[in-house]
């Protein structure tokens, strides 16, 4: 650990949250719950209290970089190669020894939002569009579309047995909240983490969202309140934040005077309105706004990065410049103590990975855009030791059908898909779970999406049952179960 991060770690407990905001200080995102509860007197909620910002048990990880591939990555052509679909290519599934995968009982998990949407089973097996080989000491097989990730395979735990229930792109939301589109809106995992844990750095938002966000629920906080929504950032030092710079050429020095005056007037108002928590919160919010305005562009100013680093992230390559910039920014945010960073890849329509046709070209292009930056991120974090306390997740909303859609595409496939995690106390070089020979169903150590949430929360030291909100009943499946097999 370097000097800077030592200082950061020490500051964690010094910033308590919410319940006693009015007494000791202000969380970065303000006092929604604090104010509301104060008003209602907590009369009928018994022993319930909002989170203190402290972990419930010793955390293994402090931050999360959540990489989400919009549209649905093919499991067979990424991290779960299936030679059988090449062997039986052109055959109908019912003609193969694996016909039982279409047993209606095995297909019962799926819930259709729009009926007839992508439900026609894609029967004719479509061969693998890319080769694969073993990598690293672990010898894990990865497709040739992801050479940079493959180079780092010994840092990674792959979970090949994910399943979900939405066969529409509402599954993007489902991956983030654990709930199907038809169930309404719920907080995303980032929202929960932000709600449950205190700040690592008071000058920066603790929950950031980078990249095109296509999924349906755009409010991470949902019933936890808008204070727990991600702060959307553009990776553009000139204009990273909404309302991030004064209009009309107002100089920063002028604004400083203005903010000082706001503060002074509030202080004077305190004579007439003493002990007003809102006033104190507002003063704090202005101080933070002013800091944020300057700290965020500074984080996004890469001039102190070496040319070599920039090249590693692919900033000089047109095909991966955008994602590389986002990941370099993510690394810089983690370094400075940002808790949760969502990076979405592939906006537009239902998501760029949604290869209903032309899968080969589609995945080739998309993997080219993300692979090198992700490899660079893993190596960079590992070298500085940050990977030990940072979880990197690579995920997508569902897999793709082993059968062909049209002549050269694959359809949505909720029955099986792969995700992987690295860092933050996750095992290195492990494959967990398995699909059948066609990659059709997750058959071994099956995991619903919330098991990923539970695993991450476990590493962050949070017990999701201890931060529930009264009146918002969560079921066992909403909490999920940590995947202990991949935890070091």
């Amino acid at each position, binding site marked *: 650990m370097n000097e800077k991060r030592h200082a950061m770690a020490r500051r964690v407990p010094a910033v308590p949250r919410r319940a006693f905001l009015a007494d000791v200080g202000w969380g*970065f995102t303000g006092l929604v719950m604090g104010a509301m509860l104060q008003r209602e007197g907590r*009369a009928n909620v018994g022993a319930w209290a909002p989170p203190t910002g402290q972990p419930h048990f010793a955390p293994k990880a402090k931050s999360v970089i959540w990489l989400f591939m919009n549209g649905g990555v093919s499991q067979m052509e990424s991290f779960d190669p299936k030679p059988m679909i090449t062997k039986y290519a052109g055959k109908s599934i019912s003609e193969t020894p694996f016909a039982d995968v279409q047993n209606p009982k095995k297909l019962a998990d799926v819930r259709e939002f729009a009926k007839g949407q992508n439900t026609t089973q894609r029967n004719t097996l479509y061969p693998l569009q890319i080769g694969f080989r073993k990598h690293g000491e672990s010898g894990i097989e990865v497709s040739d579309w992801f050479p940079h990730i493959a180079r780092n395979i010994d840092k990674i735990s792959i979970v090949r047995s994910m399943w979900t229930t939405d066969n529409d792109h509402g599954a993007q939301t489902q991956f983030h909240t654990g709930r199907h589109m038809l169930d309404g809106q719920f907080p995303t995992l980032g929202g929960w983490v932000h709600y449950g844990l205190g700040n690592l750095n008071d000058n920066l938002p603790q929950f950031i969202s980078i990249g095109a966000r296509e999924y349906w629920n755009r409010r991470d906080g949902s019933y936890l309140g808008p204070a727990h929504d991600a702060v959307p950032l553009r990776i553009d030092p000139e204009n990273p934040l909404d309302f991030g710079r004064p209009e009309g050429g107002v100089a920063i020095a002028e604004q400083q005077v203005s903010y000082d005056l706001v503060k002074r007037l509030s202080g004077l108002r305190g004579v007439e309105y003493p002990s007003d928590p809102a006033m104190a919160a507002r003063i704090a919010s202005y101080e933070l706004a002013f800091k944020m305005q300057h700290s965020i562009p500074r984080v996004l100013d890469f001039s102190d990065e070496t040319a070599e680093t920039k090249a590693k992230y692919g900033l000089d390559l047109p095909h991966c410049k955008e994602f590389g910039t986002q990941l370099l920014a993510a690394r810089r945010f983690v370094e400075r103590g940002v808790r949760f960073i969502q990076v979405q890849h592939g906006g537009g329509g239902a998501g760029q990975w949604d290869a209903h046709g032309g899968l080969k070209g589609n995945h080739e292009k998309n993997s080219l855009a993300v692979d090198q930056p992700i490899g660079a991120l893993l190596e960079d974090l590992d070298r500085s030791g940050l990977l030990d306390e940072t979880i990197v997740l690579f995920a997508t909303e569902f897999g793709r059908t082993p059968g062909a859609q049209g002549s050269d595409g694959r359809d949505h496939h909720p029955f099986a898909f792969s995700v992987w995690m690295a860092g933050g106390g996750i095992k290195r070089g492990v494959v967990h779970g398995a699909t059948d020979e066609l990659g059709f169903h997750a058959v071994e150590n099956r995991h619903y999406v919330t098991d990923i949430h539970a695993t991450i929360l476990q590493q962050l030291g949070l017990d999701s049952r201890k931060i529930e909100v009264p009146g918002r009943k969560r079921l066992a499946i909403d909490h999920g179960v940590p995947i202990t097999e991949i935890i070091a």
Partner: protein
Amino acid sequence: MIALSDSPNNTRFRLLARIVVAVFVVLSHRQIYADAPSSTGPTTHQPVNYLQQIKPLLASRCYACHGSLKEKSGLRLDTAKSMKQGGESGPAIVPGDADASEVIRRTTTDDISERMPPEGEGEPLTVQEVELLRLWIANGASAPDDEKPEPDARQHWSFRPRVRPSVPQVSRDAQLRNPIDSFIADQFDRYGLVAQPEASRSVLIRRLYLDLVGVPPTTDEFDRCFSDVSAQWYEALVDRLLIDPRHADRWARHWMDIWRYADGSGLGTELRTSHDNVWHWRDWIVESLKSDVPYDEMVRQMLAADEIYPDDLQKVRATGFLARNYSRFSRTQWMEETVEHVGKGFLGMTFNCARCHDHKYDPIEQVDYYKMRAFFEPYLVRVDLLPSDVDLSRGGVPRVYDASLTVPTYLLVRGQENNPLRENPVQPGVPRIFEFMTCAVEPLQLPTEAYQPERRPWLLDVHLQSAKAKLATAESAARQAQQELAEKKVKQKAEENIEKKAEKRAEKESTDENKSNDLDVEEAFIGLRLAIAQAEFVSVERRVAATIARKALSSGELTEGILPEPAHSQALAACQAERQVTVLQAQYAVEEAEQKLKSAEPDKKKPIEESLATLRESLAKAILERDQPTEQFSGLGGGATRVETRFINNQGPDPVEEFPTQSSGRRTALARWITDPTNPLTARVAANHFWARHMGAPLVATTFEFGRKGTPPSHPELLDWLASELVESGWSMKHLHRMIVTSAAYRRTTSVAGAQANLQKDPDNRYWWRRTPIRLESQVIRDSILAISGEIDFTQGGQPIASENQAASTRRSVYFVHSGNDRNLFLSMFDDASAIECYRRDESIVPQQALALSNSRLVYDASLRIAERLTASIPPAEHTETDFIRAAFRLVLNTEPSREELLACSDAMATWHSLPDVAQDARPDFRCRCNLVRTLLNDNDFVTLR
């Protein structure tokens, strides 16, 4: 130390927190955690506290089936006594012997059919929970002797009939302005609280304006109130503001939150929920509030205006409330949203909790959920043209109608859509506990025009007006095209003249000819397009005339083979006019193809020639048909279109049936039941919303949950009194507004100055000893900025302002598009209502708000205008910075600055002046003034309702 029953926890918690913080600071973060995940269960040495450890566990996990709500297998677990007594399987516990206790056996068994809680009803108890139970039983299962069973669920406060409470006699000379204050003061006596004084007049004026009309007073308005010497100045102001049209915009937004207003949204151009014209419903809300349509009547109209007033499209607009739930692909989702939010919005009941199983807290069985759904099962959405709809393609009111009287509702086992109980369709009905009045459903016959909207007498006129408008647009387009063409010709002439002077005239000649030919062709096409538009108009006009003539005939005459005169010749003329359009269109196609052929490369000519031949044939045929007209002409459109659904298959629309002649009457029955004065919930839920929005916090904190899981009212009598006032005033909203805002409770200061004793006893102001400040809603903040800058446009109604036009718009924020995909960025910074569900706004204070208020274009532009206005308003003679500061405080905050505030502002002005950026400005004084104004717009009290 603490007198109130509910605050000890709170205060103790804070104290504890302080101590915890102190400890945290000296520890490293890795050492701090509440308990390890592997924490072991209790050991036998630890005593178990029944009331603190066992009872809450059983209450949350077992009471739903073994308590007052239900006594499954004759067993109740809500007292130790009843546990010993047991049920059909014998005693649940054997004190001293955990292993012999049924409760332990059933919670730990591996047999899934035996396990408690049963699968699907709840998670198994954790190992620690079972250990606790075990230990308590082993220790003898002790419990207080006077332990009371869980109160009867049917006797829950909000389910009991509402009785108008008598106004309490209050002994003290408290501030009593109306009965509300007696109810409040009654609690003061009990808890030893003292009311804070009334706020200053300037604060009161600002408070009433922001609360009742949603913008601060203008300087003139403020001065008028401030200098009103009448003792009734306050009441007079309230009366003025309640009839101010702006009041309707302001309060419409409150109800739009609760009733879930959302403009149409979807993916790309595909509509997936609500409807683009649902704003008709918003306009209906605004108009209804303006004319004080009673609350109960508004609810009835929203649920069933199509049945109660089938002939009155203005009222039918109200059913946008239900049309908003439209969901293109999923009937289940549509119905779920409808049941959930009719329950939460009007009744404060969470029916949605009973979708998969019986309600865990309230006497609502799973079948009751589907009985509720059955009220709505028949309805779908259609769009009816209005007399004012000139643009047919964008017009129409989205409204509901019963599309089928026989469509069944099935209970879905465990709420699963693919698991309906088909053998047993569910009939509409209300839960047994609420059968205080019969909810009889009677189908009703609809008037003809409701199911044959094409018969609406004004409809032909709509078509005519629409055709006229279309023609006018075409004519003006043609005029413009001709003008442009004329200019081109002039230009070309000029160029030709220049070229003529050049020597190569001969060579150029052929090209010149082509050029002028091009322009001539263009001219011909413009003429042809205009001719088509004119023919289309004539077609509509003749068809309207022919339809009228045909309608005038008696039914006997219609059955004949040939129409009698003059209907016959009218029909022929209509037919001919319609076919003339076809002829012109065919002609256009031919000429287009001819042009294409001319300019095509020789090798590409063949296919064009072929298609040209076909087109010429079509033209010849069209001419032939036009010259032999028949009585058959196309109708003008029915005046109502069903909104497409794709429930059966996403690949194509569901089949459309004719509008039925009857309506099921189900929604009318439900509406009458909800609005019956004896319904214990409706008026209480509404009164709570009124109170919350005027006072900053509700009497029942859980505004959409009045069931047993909700928070009980802090002032049950006051709530019932307000509800009774609402009902007995004929459900007049304005009456209730007036009652609340004229109370002394409303008029108190928000300050806690000098109220240390109150703060100790009731820090959360649960008993209203002061006024609770409100962080203003997003819409009020934007509207206020525009109002102060003098730019606001108070026009009411109409299509919502689209995102791309919002930056330039000065309309009130309530008229901005507000949907799931589309919300204004500035508004969204201030906890704007979610389009999905918003029974209460959040009031966050986050840095993004500071950025929006200091950096946005909206605020910057407003600061310029405000500074200009203020500068202009001060007479030049006294043109000092101090005067400017005073004027700015008056306009922006409706208050006079104190000496210290003046000083602070002057200091800031001086500092700004000294900055190089300002000094170099062409107008340094003005720039400083703008900065001052912008700073005041960022003042806490600008965004706070004091």
